[in-house]
């Protein structure tokens, strides 16, 4: 029974992520266009919102190229493992007060841990492509994603510390507005680390267009490539939702369906901010990225943790 329930939730999550990614891509194209003094997609649907509807069937029916030198089995199925964890991680998001698809006591940990499986998939796909640039991209991605787990987790830990629970629903329930100023630094760290986790600008080093062409997915075409893109946008959506839930109180101040909408609006704002950052800043270099993680973000997260601890003690 649980299995069936889980399967159904999985399908729903995949559908949500796919739909969300489609809209996310459209939103990104519009946001980046406005920042760049352009209009962006315009011709299909109102404001070009159905542009991705045209893109997806096309990608679906594109030739599925498997390079001759690639490790065929791994090459073919690695994209699934990129997309899967992101989809699965969605199930713990507390959409509104008192309701999450999967209400588990280690939900926060689950959310932080499960998407990390993606790293393995990325490394596999990069390796399987048998392409120097892809391999470099995969290696970069691995280093980056594993490193940024640390400040990200520490930042979330600040909230967990305040809430006293790893259950996302509990965290949302315990959330108070004054947490916002208190954990602002933690949110910034979470925000930055999430961007790095999902390999987006200014941390898109693994797929750096101007250096590695497309990095680890350089040799993927059609739907397989689309699943990488979907994973990226899915991760962005998941991170935005989760961030909105944890740092901005989920559906607060509303509950029920209105709470879901509030959460989504908050998440869209965070997503827009992620895009805004991407389309404003240059890209960091690999070593700078690592030193930024270990020398700036991680200590800062620790400091934040201490501050939160002090506040808790003082209370």
């Amino acid at each position, binding site marked *: 029974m649980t299995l069936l329930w889980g399967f159904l939730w999985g399908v729903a999550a995949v559908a949500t992520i796919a739909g969300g990614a489609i809209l996310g891509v459209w939103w990104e194209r519009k946001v980046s266009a406005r920042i760049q*003094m352009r209009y962006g997609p315009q011709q299909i649907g109102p404001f070009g919102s159905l542009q991705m509807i045209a893109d997806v069937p096309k990608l679906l029916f594109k030739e599925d190229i498997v390079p001759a030198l690639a490790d065929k089995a791994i090459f073919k199925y690695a994209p699934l493992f990129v997309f899967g964890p992101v989809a699965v991680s969605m199930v713990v998001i507390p959409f509104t007060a008192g309701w999450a698809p999967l209400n588990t006591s280690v939900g926060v940990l689950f959310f932080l841990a499960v998407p990390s499986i993606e790293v393995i998939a990325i490394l596999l796909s990069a390796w399987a492509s048998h392409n120097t640039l892809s391999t*470099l991209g995969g290696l970069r991605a691995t280093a980056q994603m594993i490193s940024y787990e640390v400040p990200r987790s520490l930042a979330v830990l600040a909230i967990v510390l305040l809430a006293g629970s790893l259950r996302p629903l509990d965290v949302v329930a315990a959330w108070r507005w004054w947490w916002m100023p208190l954990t602002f630094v933690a949110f910034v760290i979470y925000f930055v680390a999430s961007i790095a986790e999902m390999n987006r*600008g*200014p941390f898109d080093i693994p797929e750096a267009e*101007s*250096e590695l*062409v497309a990095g680890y997915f350089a040799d993927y075409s059609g739907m397989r490539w689309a699943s990488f893109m979907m994973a990226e946008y899915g991760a962005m959506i998941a991170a935005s939702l989760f961030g909105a839930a944890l740092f901005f109180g989920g559906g607060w101040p509303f509950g029920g369906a209105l709470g879901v909408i509030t959460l989504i609006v908050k998440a869209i704002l965070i997503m827009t901010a992620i895009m805004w950052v991407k389309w404003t800043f*240059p890209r960091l270099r*690999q070593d*700078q990225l690592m030193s930024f993680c270990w020398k700036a973000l991680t200590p800062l997260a620790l400091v934040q943790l201490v501050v939160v601890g002090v506040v808790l003690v003082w209370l």
Partner: protein
Amino acid sequence: MTEQTIVNIGPSHPSTHGVCRVVVTLDGEIVTHAEPIIGHLHRGIEKMAENRTYLQVVPLTDRLDYVGSMYANWAYCRAVERLAGIRVPERAEYIRVIVCELQRIASHMMGIGSTGADTGAFTAFMYAFAQRDHVVELFEALCGARLTYNYVRPGGVSMDLPEGWVEKCRAFTAQHPSAMLELDRLLFGNVIARARLKGVGVLSAEDAVAWGASGPTARGSGVDWDLRRDDPYSVYPRFDFQVPLGENGDSYDRARIRLWECVESCKIIDQALDQLEPGLVKAEGLPRLLAPRPGDAYDHIESARGSLGVYLVSDGTPRPYRMKVRSPAFCNLALLPLLAEGHTLSDLVVILGSLDPVFGEVDR
């Protein structure tokens, strides 16, 4: 020492600015050797010029440095004029200065923008390109082409300024410096961009001179050498302008010099427009077929990339016997192996971008 990887970048790669192939030997992510392989755009223009009349070579020179066609036009025309002893009317010289300074802006916008794109700041590229679009529009109104102008001709320029052009040009120079200031804040003031550009690809002044670097590449290293001021040609001595210089010789200096040169170019354009007087724009009585007496001549100008020279040999027929283009981008690109060594792959791209090569000119 770990095993070395050989990575092949290009010839079609988003950040090689054209069709350059760089064979990079990597030790981890560190470049131990970068070997640019050029010639993918070698079209044999110098050979073709030998079977074209002097006038017909002008469109060919357009295709040399396609980001700064006016320069190649001008350098070539100066060589022809020197060879054939043509005196250029003053108005034509002013117009040449104006269009070439506009061209400098257009070209530098491309250079700065691609520096942005190389470091991942694509939006800065868009902003720079929007400024370039203004210049391109001015050129379109002037000579009817957006890129390959064929405007500067032996003996002057092909057409006089159209009506209302001066006002449009003034409107552009009025807004351009503040746009540049904003771009400076967005790109060169940014902490990430500085981290990416500063200390990357440091070129010493001695190396710059010995390797024949010129233009912003040399000036970034503090080599105070600008043909417009130090070997004055045309009407440049009549203008008051400053030559921006760098101290460190890194990619940051090379790229940022371009930005400030644009501001200085605006100054020159304003002064030139003030001093512009009516008159002829082309030397009178030039026949369709120029046949300079046998001899050779060289002339060079300061293009956006450095000192661009044209060496012409005439044998007395209406066609050049030999044309050689001294391409600044070619000489600057030769520095890449020197600069890239010891940096990461990401930096290699930035260094290549900061040299701002245009492969039409490198390969000819």
